[in-house]
């Protein structure tokens, strides 16, 4: 029997509602999966004082003379990593898009290597290579730190390259470059006045992802005996009860703040790019 138009219309409604309900169920389940451990950690972090809920663990954490130095060291490492990574990745990705599109898969593969090689393998390889002349970099704390930043730069490549590459694909790099050239612009002007501004969102998201990785990195920093946030937190877990939870919540808040910034800036400035793109 052919259903009448009316009965179809009626039939569609409950199924649509059911679908919505289904989506909400899945969303709730996934949310709980994330939120329960987070909530538990937060709850735990509030129990620093016997029998009262409060921010004692946070106070102790910030009062610990090792925390802030480790924290600031990680932040400086992250900023240095982002800076170096941007200087390497943006011109490379730009040039590959503009002049060597055939090399793109190769570059993409190289930037993916940090995903393929486990951190623990990477760090032992690095220590073996750089712990003897002619490339002796593990001798002092500061030279090790430089080495660590270099490793972080490599670790940031997959995120940075991907973000920048996406950004470059959203604009017609070649034609914009040529338009700027014919108007008299040199390479510096093109990069800073045309390419960078149109990549703002991409650069920011690459930078913030890098930031999050460097702040939380443990394995490599640990084996290179660096006093950054990762090893500090691992140490804390071994010796303290409530502070590690407080620490986790702080790290989580920083990451979320970073995501919020991406989202905020993305909404503001990517609008004209997206619209120009969809045209």
């Amino acid at each position, binding site marked *: 029997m052919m259903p009448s138009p009316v009965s179809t219309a009626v039939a569609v409604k409950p199924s649509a509602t059911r679908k919505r309900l289904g989506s909400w169920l899945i969303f709730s389940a996934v949310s709980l999966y994330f939120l329960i451990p987070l909530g538990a950690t937060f709850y735990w972090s509030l129990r620093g004082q016997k029998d009262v809920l409060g921010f004692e663990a946070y106070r102790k954490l910030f009062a610990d003379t090792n925390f802030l130095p480790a924290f600031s060291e990680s932040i400086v490492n992250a900023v240095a990593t982002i800076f170096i990574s941007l200087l390497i990745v943006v011109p490379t990705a730009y040039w590959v898009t503009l002049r060597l599109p055939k090399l793109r898969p190769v570059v993409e593969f190289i930037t993916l290597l940090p995903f393929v090689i486990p951190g623990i393998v990477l760090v032992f390889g690095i220590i073996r290579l750089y712990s003897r002349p002619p490339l002796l970099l593990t001798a002092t704390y500061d030279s090790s730190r430089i080495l660590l930043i270099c490793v972080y730069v490599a670790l940031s490549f997959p995120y940075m390259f991907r973000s920048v590459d996406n950004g470059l694909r959203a604009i017609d790099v070649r*034609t914009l470059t040529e338009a*700027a*050239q014919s*108007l008299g*612009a040199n390479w510096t002007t093109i990069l800073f006045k045309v390419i960078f501004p149109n990549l703002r969102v991409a650069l920011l998201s690459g930078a913030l992802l890098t930031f999050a990785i460097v702040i939380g990195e443990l394995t490599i920093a640990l084996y290179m005996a660096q006093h950054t946030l990762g090893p500090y937190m691992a140490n804390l877990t071994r010796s303290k009860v409530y502070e590690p939870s407080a620490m986790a919540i702080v790290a989580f808040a920083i990451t979320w703040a970073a995501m919020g910034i991406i989202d905020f800036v993305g909404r503001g400035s990517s609008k004209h790019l997206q*619209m120009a793109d969809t045209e």
Partner: protein
Amino acid sequence: MSYLSISHVTKQFGNTVVVDDFNLEIEKGEFVSFLGPSGCGKTTTLRMVAGFEIPTSGKILLDGADITDKAPNQRNVGMIFQSYALFPNMTVAQNIAFGLSVRKESREMITQRVDEMINLINLEKHATKYPYQLSGGQQQRVSLARALAIHPQVLLLDEPLSALDAKIRVSLRAEIRAIQKKLGITAIFVTHDQEEALSISDRIVVMNVGVMEQVGTPFEVYNFPTTVFSANFVGSLNNASAEVVNPASGFISIDGVQFESAVDLTQRKSGDKVRVAIRPERLSFASEQKKANVVDATIENITFLGSVVRIRVKIGGTKFNMDTFNNPFLDLPKIGAVEQITCSREAVLVLDE
């Protein structure tokens, strides 16, 4: 000496010759179109003038200076792209100002020039808008203003109208031509649309796989094509192979049907194979007093094309299109009827086979 001189320019990509011995002299203020099918090297030639490609051999001189190897940003050449290529992060006014601020012009000068350009393209209301807020036609006008703001020595346009719809295309091409005349700027316009080339150019260069087929005014290129290719590419055309019957009197024969041509055939011999080309609009029904080139034709098909009615006829064994202006009182023959058809001696073009 001419203003822009492209001499013996050849461009190879790997082993493929894309532009082969290109020679062209362009006068100051002239509007020249490159017309040809896809892949014939129009863009490549234009890009060599702009500096985005370096010729494999040959020279390009602009106002007496050799610019063959000069970087694009040292040339003072304006370029308009099919995709507009406006900077998405800048407003209309900022886009137009870009070339001037790169040249470190004073702020007053930039403001004044930008205003002037915005007036020129009639976008006063849109100065602070971003490219995505404009229509395609408006964006292309901004890109024109941006290129003209730096007072380029030559303006290069690579199919600037191809992405626009038909109405805008026609009005914008008239606008481009008017602005070009008003400013007296030298321009090269690339297109594969023959109507576009015919309607706005001072001269047309007809190109075919890397070589120049013909250079001439639209009138010359349309009425006196020198090669089969340019005859076919510019306008629609009937063409048929024929044989020279009498070189001295201009008689040729298409499939046994004799035609008389005004073209000088004295360089050819009787029996030479040639190609004959007749434009559809040059054929007409014969009136009583006509004597030359009156032939019998069978009406095969009649098509209305709006202002024109296209009649397909068969003369001997060869099919021809005949165009006649449409009017409500037109007395059209029946399909299958045999009618007398004629064309003037001048309409019968003889080209090399």
